[in-house]
Structures are given as structure tokens and as C-alpha cells.
């Protein structure tokens, strides 16, 4: 390129500008996100100024209200046809407000709300020094087992920071699937990842494992996001812009490059393909697809169970939303390049998750692998590359997230001296001890296994149907096979709970407060409703199945 052009660039940039026209922000349409982020900031202030004994209630209040309000905002937007006819790109092209975005934001907010309930649960752990405690460490800074920790516990400290952290994460997740340029995508990614890293480290019991989980999650997450960022860089290099719309145009050749002069040198598909692959890789890491899944079991196991549930549910929703938008809005032109690759990923994910799960001995790890297998199923829907594919994925995500959060909520109830009894052998004969809890968990497992009359079946059917319609019949067959394999280990747990004799030193089932009860109740309700009468929600997802461009 010529030096003069560069010179002019500098000079124009250097010229004094008499007036700056303020950026135009549609606050109304961004309300959900803004409310949540605002509440998070408020939460931080509460930590700073509210006396310790009130913080818990204040935080709980703020988060619940915020999430409820945000959800109301989403509903209002959807009612205002922002999901369909008035779908638009807001915030100077940074954020899209359209069907998928609203649907997923709604899902995330509800999941988050339920998750907050499980966060706030204080009846499960035995009362320590006369004050109820939740499942988070008294003082994150204190060394496990040290005098400091005991002091903190005695003093009744609790890490109420988890609430603002969760809110920040939710805020990021709300933006993630709505992001309409690569930079926003990256920032959103970090905004919801970093709080999650921290939340993982805050378990009250088994702190070493918790910290280890955090370290692994953090390092690998950062590693992945580095890849994503480099991918973004390459795409930027290819298209000269990070805005979805522009990149898409460049990809399918409607415009060669923002700067015609550079088309010759820069319109290089290698950049595009490698960049796309690296971004997709970052997203696949978040959804936990093979071979980027290996963090999942360790982190799910180590993190505090409420956090695990939250992660497993909400992160998947957000990440798949982003993935959908990326593939459907930015890279439809590359369909014939990425489709076969994604099919490969989907296959190994479905089979890998199902097969490895068979030999798991820890309930949380088991659920982790099952979540991997499910990621594979959802990918099958993503690959359909049809509008039906989008809506089926949306539906599946909604169905799946509630089953997951409910299942992990049940896990928090089964406890023994060492806290939650997550080893499968401990669950033997649970059905004899407390039939209700076991039955509820069985319902969730059957939903995971995709037995008819549960949401799992509706979702699986929708996704497979979309895939078959989209011409990926082979994927359906593989999906069916891996479902058969997966069925085996869900059944194994049920056998364990109902048909094997209870152990003498078996765990007890703690009676939770209404908070967790609500969480579980919502989970069961959604599971059954979406299983028996899914039509309304299918319609919802169907209407929401169009991206704005």
C-alpha cells in the first residue's frame, strides 16, 4: 500500500474535530441486559456499604428483582414484536434484538433466577456456629483448613459476592447470543467467563477440588479465548471489519472488502477459513464439544453444585446462541466448508460423551459427560442449517437447561458427613429411603435419556427431525445409537436408586428450604409440560427462529 494513504489516515485522525455526535443507544431494547448489569454493580456497592448481616438478604432481593424485571423486559420486547417484525440491530450495530436473542435471553434469565434460588439455599449444610450457611466458602481468601478459615466460619462470614458475580455472568450471557460484532462477542465471552471462573473456586467443602477446578477452567478458558481472539483478528484481517453484517457480505462476495484497494492482497480465503475455525473452536469449548470438552467433567465435579448447575444450563444456552448466530448470520456463505466439519464434531461429541459416561462413578461427572453428549445432539440441530434447525435448537436449549438445573439441585440434597455424597455407590437404595427425591431425579434422568412424555424426548425429536429434514440423516442414526448407549448409564443410576439395597452408612436426604424446592419444582414442571404439551413452546421457538441481518 502506498505511504500517502497512510499519511492521510493519520492526518485526518489528527485533525481537530469541533463536535462529536453522541452514539445512539436504544436503551429500551437493551433493557434486559442493562438491568442485570446495573443490578450487578448495585450488588458490588452493597458488598461495600451494607453491614454484613443484611448483605445476604439485600443481595438475594436485588438479584431476584433484577432478574425478574429483566425477564419482564424480555417478555415486553417479545410482545412488542421485537422478536419478529420489529427485529433490529441496536447499539450502533453492536447488539441484535431479534427472535433468537430474546428467546435465549428469556431462557437464560429464567435459568439464572432458578439458579439464584439454589445459590441462596441455606438449609442443607449443617448449622455452623449458630448460623446457617450456604454452599459457598466463608472467606475465599482463607487457606482451607487454616485457623483463618475457622475464624471466618465462626464469625459467620459468607461470600455474598456470589450474587453480583452471578449477575455479571448472566449479563455477559445475555449479550453473548445477541452480539452482532466479533468484538462484542469476545467481550461478552470474557464478561460471563471471568465471574464463572471465580464462582468455581468458592465451594465451602472440598475446597482443594474447587480451587483446582477453578484453575483448570480458568487456564483452559483463557487459552480458548486466546484462540477465539486470534480468529477474530484473522477475520478482521480478511474482511476489514468485525461487524457481522459486513463480514457476511464479504464472505458471500456481495462486497469484496471495505477497502477496495486492499481486496487484492487481503481477500484471502485462508485467513477467513482459519479465523472462522478458531472462533468456532472457542465457542465449541464453551459448549463442551469433543475434543474441547475435557475441562467439563473436572470443573463440573469441583465447582459448588449450584454453580455447576448454573454453568451447565446457562453457559450452554448462551454459547449455542452465539454459535448459531455466527454460523447462520456470518458464515452462511461458508456452509459447505463448515458443515462437514461440524458433522464430524457432532458425531464424536455424541458418541464420546455417551461412551465415556458409561464408566463414571461420580454423579456430577456423569452429568458432565451427559451434558457433553447433549451438546452433540444440539449440534445436530445446528447443522440442519434451516430455520427449523434454529427453532429446534432453541427449544432443545430451553428444555435441556431446566432439566439440568433441576438435576443438580437434587444432587445438592443428597448429603453425608463430607457434604454432598456424589459418589454413585452412595446413591444405592435411595429410592427406598426417600422415594420422592429418587422419583424426581428419575424423572430428570428419563428426560436426559429422551423417554417420551418428557421434555427430553420432544427436544430430541425436534432436533433430529430438523437434522433429517436438513439432509443429515446419518447424523440422526448416530444420534439414535448414542442415545441407546446413553440410556444405559441413566438406567444404571435408576437401578442403583431403586433396585439395590440401601447401604448402612448411606447418605441422608436434607430437607431443603422453599428456595431449592422451587428450583426443583420448576424443573419437574417444565420437564413434564414440555414433554406432554410442547406445542405452545414449539410455536414460540418457531416464531423466534429468524435472525436479523
Amino acid at each position, binding site marked *: 500500500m502506498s505511504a500517502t494513504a497512510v499519511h492521510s489516515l493519520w492526518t485526518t485522525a489528527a485533525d481537530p474535530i469541533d463536535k462529536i455526535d453522541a452514539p445512539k443507544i436504544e436503551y429500551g431494547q437493551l433493557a434486559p441486559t442493562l438491568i442485570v448489569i446495573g443490578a450487578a454493580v448495585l450488588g458490588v456497592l452493597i458488598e461495600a456499604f451494607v453491614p454484613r448481616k443484611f448483605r445476604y438478604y439485600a443481595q438475594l432481593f436485588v438479584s431476584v428483582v433484577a432478574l425478574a424485571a429483566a425477564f419482564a423486559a424480555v417478555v415486553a420486547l417479545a410482545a412488542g414484536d421485537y422478536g419478529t417484525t420489529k427485529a433490529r440491530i441496536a447499539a450502533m450495530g453492536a447488539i441484535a434484538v431479534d427472535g433468537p436473542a430474546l428467546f435465549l435471553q428469556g431462557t437464560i434469565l429464567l435459568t439464572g433466577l432458578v439458579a439464584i434460588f439454589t445459590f441462596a439455599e441455606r438449609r442443607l449444610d449443617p448449622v455452623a456456629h449458630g448460623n446457617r450457611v450456604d454452599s459457598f466458602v466463608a472467606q475465599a481468601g482463607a487457606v482451607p483448613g487454616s485457623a483463618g478459615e475457622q475464624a471466618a466460619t465462626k464469625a459467620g462470614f459468607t461470600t455474598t459476592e456470589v450474587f453480583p458475580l452471578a449477575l455479571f455472568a448472566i449479563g455477559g450471557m445475555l449479550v453473548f447470543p445477541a452480539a452482532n460484532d466479533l468484538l462484542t462477542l469476545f467481550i461478552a465471552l470474557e464478561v460471563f467467563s471471568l465471574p464463572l471462573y471465580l464462582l468455581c473456586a468458592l465451594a465451602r467443602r472440598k475446597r482443594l477440588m474447587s480451587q483446582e477446578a477453578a484453575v483448570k477452567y480458568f487456564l483452559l478458558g483463557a487459552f480458548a479465548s486466546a484462540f477465539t481472539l486470534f480468529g477474530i483478528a484473522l477475520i478482521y484481517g480478511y474482511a476489514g471489519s468485525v461487524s457481522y453484517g459486513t463480514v457476511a457480505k464479504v464472505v458471500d462476495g456481495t462486497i469484496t472488502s471495505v477497502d477496495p484497494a486492499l481486496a487484492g492482497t487481503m481477500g484471502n480465503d485462508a485467513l477467513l477459513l482459519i479465523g472462522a475455525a478458531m472462533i468456532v473452536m472457542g465457542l465449541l469449548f464453551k459448549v463442551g464439544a469433543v475434543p474441547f470438552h475435557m475441562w467439563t467433567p473436572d470443573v463440573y465435579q469441583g465447582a459448588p453444585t449450584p454453580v455447576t448447575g448454573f454453568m451447565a444450563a446457562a453457559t450452554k444456552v448462551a454459547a449455542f446462541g452465539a454459535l448459531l448466530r455466527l454460523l447462520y448470520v456470518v458464515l452462511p456463505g461458508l456452509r459447505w466448508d463448515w458443515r462437514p466439519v461440524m458433522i464430524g464434531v457432532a458425531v464424536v461429541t455424541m458418541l464420546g460423551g455417551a461412551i465415556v459416561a458409561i464408566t463414571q462413578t461420580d454423579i456430577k461427572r456423569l452429568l458432565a459427560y451427559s451434558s457433553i453428549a447433549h451438546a452433540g445432539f444440539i449440534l445436530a440441530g445446528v447443522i440442519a442449517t434451516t430455520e427449523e434447525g434454529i427453532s429446534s435448537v432453541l427449544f432443545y436449549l430451553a428444555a435441556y437447561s431446566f432439566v439440568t438445573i433441576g438435576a443438580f439441585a437434587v444432587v445438592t440434597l443428597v448429603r453425608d458427613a463430607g457434604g454432598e455424597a456424589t459418589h454413585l455407590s452412595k446413591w444405592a437404595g435411595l429410592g427406598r429411603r426417600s422415594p420422592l427425591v429418587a422419583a424426581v431425579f428419575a424423572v430428570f434422568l428419563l428426560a436426559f435419556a429422551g*423417554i417420551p412424555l418428557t421434555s427430553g424426548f420432544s427436544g430430541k425429536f425436534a432436533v433430529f427431525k430438523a437434522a433429517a429434514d436438513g439432509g443429515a440423516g446419518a447424523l440422526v442414526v448416530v444420534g439414535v445409537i448414542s442415545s441407546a448407549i446413553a440410556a444405559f448409564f441413566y438406567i444404571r443410576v435408576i437401578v442403583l436408586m431403586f433396585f439395590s439395597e440401601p447401604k448402612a452408612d448411606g447418605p441422608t436426604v436434607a430437607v431443603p428450604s422453599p428456595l431449592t424446592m422451587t428450583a426443583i419444582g420448576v424443573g419437574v414442571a417444565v420437564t413434564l409440560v414440555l414433554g406432554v404439551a410442547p406445542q405452545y413452546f414449539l410455536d414460540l421457538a418457531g416464531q423466534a427462529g429468524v435472525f436479523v441481518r
Partner: protein
Amino acid sequence: MSFPLLTATAALPAVGAIVTAAVPAARRTAAKWLALLFSVATLALAVVVAVRFDPDGDRYQLTESRSWIADFGVRYELGVDGIGVALIALTALLIPFIILAGWHDADPLETKSSRWRPTQGFFALILAVEAMVIISFEATDVFLFYIFFEAMLIPMYFLIGGFGDRAHAGSDEKASAQRSYAAVKFLLYNLAGGLIMLAAVIGLYVVAGNFSLQEIAEARANGSLDMATNTERWLFLGFFFAFAVKAPLWPLHTWLPNAMGEATAPVAVLITAVVDKVGTFAMLRFCLGLFPEASKWATPAILVLALISIIYGALLAVGQRDIKRLVAYASISHFGFIILGIFAMTSQGQSGATLYMVNHGISTAALMLVAGFLISRRGSRLIADYGGVQKVAPVLAGTFLIGGLATLSLPGLAPFVSEFLVLAGTFARYPAVGIIATFGIVLAALYTLVLYQRTMTGPVKPEVASMPDLKVRELAVVAPLIALLIVLGVYPKPVTDLVNPAVEHTMSDVQKKDPKPEVEAAK
């Protein structure tokens, strides 16, 4: 819209299940009576259905249709033809006896905590199964059928795994281990079949765009929907595989002996006499109805498998040491006959097959339940542990013998009619197959009589010396079944009249005509 009779018939036991399950732990007996009450009420409804059904009327009657999941092209469509009515009647008829026979099977052992309520669960599950079976006999929407075809597995699974008979009192650990193995095997086999069917169901949707049996059949008839030959074959195989697992057809049969061996006798009856019938029923309704060409294409292979099932099942029955496993293998042999009749594609064969489903249900129930009473007395399933029972318990022995004679389809008892129809129907089109199948009747005599001889005759074993004869409750279970066997053996006309028109329809589905007798052919 008129009163939804079919929905009611299916819903009543479902309600019963919920009610029964809700009975508090202490009120065990109340739960039993409730369950019995509901099952009898269902029987009454089933009778109403049978009465309201006009054999010479439309193919599907008492139809109901509501939209359900539009996105999947799924409608809530019910309707029965003669075959469906017969099988619904069978189901509704057997369940009360099953409940009555299992009256004490689920009384909790003292070790269980008070919150564990096996009795309520047991009867609730039985009713749940009944509901699902009935609705899958009624469904004319493939998806609706599939849902309950699959969902049915769960309660069955708990029935098998949760309530094994108290046969081996000694090694409880080992017993429960075997039990859960059997239950898991049952579930995985059927689930695998079901999932493969799911793939086919989805494929069907992709091809046909909806799930309505009638619409698809019409569309195929008037050519507005033409499947590629291979597509049709693949879909057919997907469906048939699931049904063949359920039926069960050799070589997919191995779950049945375990399941029937480990489950309590009433549950075993529930499996083989009721639930498995859904498989054969579905072959008749869905395989032939949706994929006539593919059915004809696959017929030779299926006939061979059916033959193998007949002979193989019978031979293995001869080789069994365990009474219940013996009955299980006998059932495998009988299912071979049923499938043979279905795919012989003659009206005698298919009427026979349908009749066979009913008769086999009743006869196996009779034999198995008596066997259950026997086992509960001695606490062992091994044939070798018995001997000379007829000396101490003549009535038990007598009923057992009659059950056995029904199993070997003695003329005058119901199964003979159906078996001969199947054989004749098969012979008419495939003489060789018919003849080979006829060997089955000799083997049937072998395993039945050997069983009877080893258990009932000979010198009285000390362990059985003090064995009481049938109690009133038990007699109340067996006597009606035996009476029914005789009545249907002497005067099957009511059932055949019910079935014949429906069979004509299936015959027209596959566009097959009965082969003409030579003498007429000559003229």
C-alpha cells in the same frame, strides 16, 4: 363431539394408577381393592367399546381427533378396528386377574422403612401399563403410538426390577442382582428397538409430512405419496425391528426368558400376555398398513425367522430347568406362530394370528399364574424341586394340566382354533413353511407334558408333601380363565366375526388375495 369413549377407556386405569399410588402407606389393602376396582371398571368400559363397535361398519370407529403437536405434524388420533377391539378387550380382561393373582406379591417385607410403599407402587404400575397398552392399541397416529410404545417400558421396567418373586428366599442379594439384570436387559433391548424405530419415525415424517395412519395409507393408495423402494424398505425395517424385539422374534428374544424368569408370575403374564402383544399388533397395523410393498419384500426372511422362533423356542423350552423360563420359551415359540400368521398374508393366517394373540394371552395367563401359585408354595422355580404334586393338590395339578393342554393347543381349547388357522393360512401360500411349523405342535406336547410329568406326577417329594391346594382367591383367578379357554375353543365365532372384516382391510392394504383351492382353480 360425542363422548370420547376410547380416551376414557385409556384414561380410567391411568387415573386409577394415580389414585392407587396416592394411598397412604398403611392402607395397603385399600390400595389393592382400589386397583381391582379400577381394573374392573376399565373392563366394563372395554365391554362398552366392544358393544358399540360395529364389525361391518367403517374400518376405524369411535374415532377421536384433536390437534396436539402441530409442529411435528402430530395429532391425537384414536380409533379402533376389530383387531384393536379384541386386544383391548383381552387387556382389560386380564388385568383384574393379574391384580388378583398378585394380591400378596408386593406386601412389603418388614425391613423396609415406612416411607417405602411397594404395594401401592406395584398396583399403580400395573394400572399404568394397562393404560399405556390400551392407548397404543387405539392410536391411529404413528407418533402417538410410538410415544406410548416407548413410555410403556418404564413402568414395566420397575415392575420387573422392583418386584421379583420371593422364589429364592436364601440369597436375596443374588436374587436382586439377577432381577435388576433382567430389568435392565428388558429395558435396553426394547429401548434400542424403540430408538431405531424413532429414526424410522422421523424418516417417515420427512417422507410423508404427517403421522396419520389413515392419511398416509390413503396418500399411498391414490399415489399422491410415493416412497422410493429403498426408503420404504429402510423405514419398514426400522419399525419392524422395534416390534420384533417386543414380540419377541428370534434372535432378539433373549430378554424375555430373563424378564419372565425374574419377575413375579403376574408381571410375567403382563409381559407376555399383554405388553408383547403390542409388538405383534403393531406389525399387523403399522408394518403392513404403512409399508405394504416392503412387507411383501421382507416376507420370506420374516417367515424364516418365525419358523426358527417356533422350533427353536420349543426346543429350548424342552431344555429348561426353570418353570417360568420354560413358559417364556414356549411363548417365544407361540409368537413365532403369530408372526407366521401375520406374514403369510392370507385371511386365515391373519385372522388366526389375531385370534392367537387373544388365546395365547389367556392360555399363558392360566398356565403362568398357576405356576406362580405353585412356586409361591414351594419357594422354588426349579422343576427338579417338585414331584407328585397332583397327589397333594389335585385341583392345582388339574388346572395346571389344562393350562398346559391349552399351551399345546389341544383341540377343543381356544388356542387350537387360532393355531390351526395360522397353519392352514400359511400352508395355503407356503406349503413347506406350513409343514415345518407343524412340527412345533409335537414339540409343544413334549415340553408341556415333560413339565407336567416332572412336577405333578411320580412319588410325592417330601418338600411338597404339605402343599396346600388352591385357595378361593386363586381359584377365582384360574377358573374363569379356563372357562374362557373352553368357550372360545368351542365357540370362537364372536371373536372371528369381530376380526374378519378388519383382516380383510389389512389384506387389501397389502393387495393380497387368498390363493384359490385347486378344484375351483381348475374350474
